[in-house]
């Protein structure tokens, strides 16, 4: 507990405070709002900010299930691949909409978690997530006039180049969606026009007819347009949907949550109040009961809070309501290691030991309890994290990180402060440690600490 240790702890505190400051006004050589590293060819970029969960900033969250039972027969793509593909499609749809910081994660193989911060429209979110966007071109059924049939194999939107919207008709006012098949479907498209020239065909989206154009001439290329009586808006939506690709499997919503931003802001405010009141209550109690060591523990606790918040911003941990509850709870628990040490310290002092010896002995004897009890909490947090979803995961993560950091601050920082304090003559009065003055040990001549 001498030499480089104190400086290291101070350095960590400074870095943590720097990370905690909301906006970095000082433009350090990094020149970016966070940590930027360049090692050879590899860039590492991490923006430092507090990530608020949906329940705190408002938005929509969906849990989607892949409806594998509705897969067409013969499709034997493995579930994880389907999940990847579906997430890719949803990701492209969201990107086109410009939602900031969306979350798209798989939960197991058959579910997808989708978070859309700031999106208040539940129906829009549902559209994004569950519209299959399966485009199919059907040709007249010769046997049943007026009916259409799939081609063999079906001609779908699978091999389409990016589509775009243009305007046609008198005065260029009717929006149409332009498409172009890529190989090999471009040749099939030309063949189709040869075979069915002068006849009516059908274009379906997710099984619903959106257009039934008559083929007027033989096409020369894989190009075509869909004119479905669109508005500019709906034409753009269709184009976007087609460009993002079709979902490989139908999805259903098994859980949806929408949080209004004001409810979220209210929660943040309440949590902050609860956290501040909690810390104050603990501080008053600790100083009242343990005197000087109690005050030192509060310094260590402040250190703990600063460090933990910095960890949340760096990792980054998305803060949810449950997560903040876990953090506040961990403040109470963080004090425990100090309590264990101080109770030991008092005991050792009462046996007549010198301050130095008592501090050292208190640390040594309290350590196994601190170690195993923290391990038990971290263990349950890890299990919660593994089995939990959403809320529970957030709580487990912040509690786990909190307890791990509190172990560090209680064992190292409090000890360091205690050791520093007992070297100050004015702070050596035993009453400051909550022990009767009369049992004072004689000052030992040996200069070395035990």
């Amino acid at each position: 507990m001498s030499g480089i240790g104190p400086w290291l702890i101070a350095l960590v505190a400074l870095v943590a405070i720097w990370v905690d400051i909301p906006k970095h006004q000082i433009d350090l050589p990094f020149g970016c709002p966070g940590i930027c590293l360049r090692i050879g060819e590899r860039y590492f970029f991490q923006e430092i900010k507090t990530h608020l969960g949906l329940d705190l900033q408002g938005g929509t969250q969906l849990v989607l299930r892949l409806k594998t039972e509705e897969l067409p027969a013969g499709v034997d793509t493995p579930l994880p691949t389907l999940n990847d593909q579906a997430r890719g499609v949803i990701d492209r749809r969201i990107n086109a909409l410009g939602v900031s910081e969306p979350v798209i994660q798989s939960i197991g193989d058959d579910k997808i978690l989708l978070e859309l911060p700031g999106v208040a429209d539940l129906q829009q979110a549902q559209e994004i997530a569950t519209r299959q966007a399966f485009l199919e071109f059907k040709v007249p059924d010769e046997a049943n006039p007026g009916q259409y049939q799939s081609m063999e194999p079906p001609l779908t939107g699978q091999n389409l180049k990016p589509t775009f919207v243009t305007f046609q008709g008198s005065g260029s006012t009717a929006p149409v969606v332009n498409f172009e098949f890529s190989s090999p479907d471009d040749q099939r498209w030309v063949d189709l026009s040869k075979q069915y020239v002068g006849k009516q065909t059908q274009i379906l989206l997710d099984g619903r007819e959106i257009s039934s154009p008559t083929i007027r001439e033989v096409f020369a290329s894989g190009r075509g347009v869909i004119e479905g009586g669109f508005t500019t808006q709906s034409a753009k939506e269709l184009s976007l949907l087609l460009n993002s690709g079709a979902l490989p499997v139908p999805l259903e919503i098994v859980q949806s949550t929408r949080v209004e931003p004001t409810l979220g802001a209210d929660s943040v405010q309440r949590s902050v109040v609860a956290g501040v009141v909690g810390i104050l209550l603990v501080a008053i109690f600790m100083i009242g009961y343990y005197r000087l060591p109690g005050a030192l523990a509060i310094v260590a606790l402040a250190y703990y809070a600063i460090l933990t918040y910095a960890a949340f911003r760096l990792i980054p941990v998305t803060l949810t309501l449950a997560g903040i509850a876990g953090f506040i709870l961990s403040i109470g628990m963080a004090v425990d290691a100090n309590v264990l040490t101080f109770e030991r310290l008092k005991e050792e002092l009462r046996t007549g030991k010198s301050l130095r010896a008592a501090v050292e002995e208190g640390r040594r004897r309290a350590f196994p309890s601190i170690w195993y009890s923290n391990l038990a909490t971290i263990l349950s947090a890890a299990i919660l994290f593994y089995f939990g979803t959403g809320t529970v995961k957030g709580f487990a993560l912040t509690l786990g990180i909190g307890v791990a950091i509190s172990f560090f601050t209680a064992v190292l920082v409090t000890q360091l402060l205690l050791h520093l304090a007992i070297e100050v003559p004015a702070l050596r009065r035993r009453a400051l440690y909550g022990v009767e003055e009369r049992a004072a040990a004689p000052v030992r001549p040996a200069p070395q600490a035990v």
Partner: protein
Amino acid sequence: MRAPAAQSTSLFHFVERKWLYFLLSGLFILPGAVFIVLGGLKPGIEFRGGTLLDARFEPVPATEGVRDVMASLGHGGAIVQRAEGGRLLIRTSEMQPAEIVAVEKAFNERFPGALREAPSSSVVSPSFSAELLTNAVRAVVFASVLIVLLIAFAFRSFGWSAFRYGAAAIVALLHDALVVLGTFAILGYFLNVEVDSLFVTAVLTIIGFSVHDTIVVFDRIRENMRLNAGEPLNPVINFSLMQTLARSIITSLTVLLTLLALYLFGGYSVRNFALALIVGIIAGTYSSIFNAAQVISLWQELDDAWRGRRKARRAAA
């Protein structure tokens, strides 16, 4: 100071009065257990499937009116509850997004200008809720098993009797979990308080905390047994409990202070969570002082009695 046998007469009789403490625990657990059997634990929408709407009104309409609107949309069984800040909580069966929009529209028609913003909503389909429940149960079981192994490992120097400590910690842990479950069964039975995934989280946290407390006491017993080799067990336990008493109470107090702040200021969505933790931590503190070590003591007494009888039989033969 480290002479337990000489000290024990002047100490609090933690071990000697163990049956009294066991009885007290029983008196707390029994009513809760009755209500658990009566189905007092009410699963929330997460574990049952359904919809929870959270709508802010100003002025707040009568709950009957809101229930009428829900009934007119085919949700006759909707439960409407008032919450702070002009909020109404409406619970009903699973709704599609279009239905939620329809509810919002109907509110605006029935109570013009009163709805402050589109209601927050949470919908869970019954199939998914079954999975969430399974996961929750699995987490509790898995956590308990791992924690027992951890205790057995921490006290491995005791040899086979390490499992006694493990078993005693489980008794304490079950005690705490039962007190919390019982309390919420009573609350659920009379006040319709529901059990959600946050509650399960609270129970798991309590289990972790309970073991945390118990380990500290057991660690002291271990240390004192080493320092007083050959002493009978009961005075050592008594002395150890006396030594850890201040720590047990103070740690719980600091945690309770933060939880109290959370309960009072954290808002209604975390209030039941904070309450579950408060009940659990009080129970956990009690069980670590008055139950866990007493189980070890009882075990030793039974063991001694059994050995004594065997010795007597052998002597007679």
